[in-house]
């Protein structure tokens, strides 16, 4: 399964081991882990809650993975995204790509993250000393996604 949306935490080492198990063609594994910070826009953040659109989320992520596969010569890719309530230092998202050489693995991994940020239906709500608020989308994320088009 290339895409998982779950409340549970993940073990990046175990996922990498599983993704490349027994595949001697693989010469490169790239991975990215997104983590909850304790600050955003100058305010302390004590908690983050991720809402999503069940059904569409999986479909959108599958599409993004398929797009990455069509653009780069990768053997496999995995995306795990957590939903629900998370705390600072918790892991949010994991992307892993495998390839013969590092260039394709790095690029596909970065592309997956950039496209996920703007194309997968997740929304963050954060708890700050001033109350709870929805996180605004960033123009820099749109710009990052546009680089690939």
């Amino acid at each position, binding site marked *: 399964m290339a895409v998982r949306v779950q409340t549970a935490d993940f073990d990046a080492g175990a996922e990498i081991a599983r993704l490349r198990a027994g595949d001697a063609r693989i010469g490169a594994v790239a991975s990215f882990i997104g983590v909850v910070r304790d600050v955003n826009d100058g305010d302390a953040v004590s908690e983050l809650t991720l809402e999503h*659109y069940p059904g569409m989320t999986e479909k959108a992520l599958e599409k993004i993975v398929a797009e990455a596969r069509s653009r780069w010569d990768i053997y496999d890719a995995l995306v795990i*995204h957590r939903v629900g309530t998370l705390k600072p230092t918790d892991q949010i998202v994991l992307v892993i790509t495998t390839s013969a050489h590092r260039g394709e693995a790095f690029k596909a991994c970065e592309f997956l993250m950039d496209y996920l940020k703007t194309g997968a*239906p997740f*929304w963050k709500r954060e708890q700050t000393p001033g109350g709870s608020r929805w996180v605004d989308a960033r123009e820099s994320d749109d710009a990052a996604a546009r680089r690939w088009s």
Partner: protein
Amino acid sequence: MKPGESQAAVVRILYFARLREALGRAEEELVLPEGVRDVGSLLAFLRERGGAWADELASGRAVRAAVNQDMSDATAAIRAGDEVAFFPPVTGG
């Protein structure tokens, strides 16, 4: 549904995140009004409800849409039985 049986042109509309809260609902079923054929005209119809609907869905606001779980723009067609969703720009990752 059997052939020949009549079917009202109903669409399911979902709202997420800030929009769900501001509009006070997560979903609804709507009999497609006359003249509503795409995302843009559906938005215009919903705005006519006034209040939070007019404010939140105003043309200057960043509202994204999906039709049958695919990101869609204002020109995307809407047909009976479709699932349409409205939500703010996404903030995952």
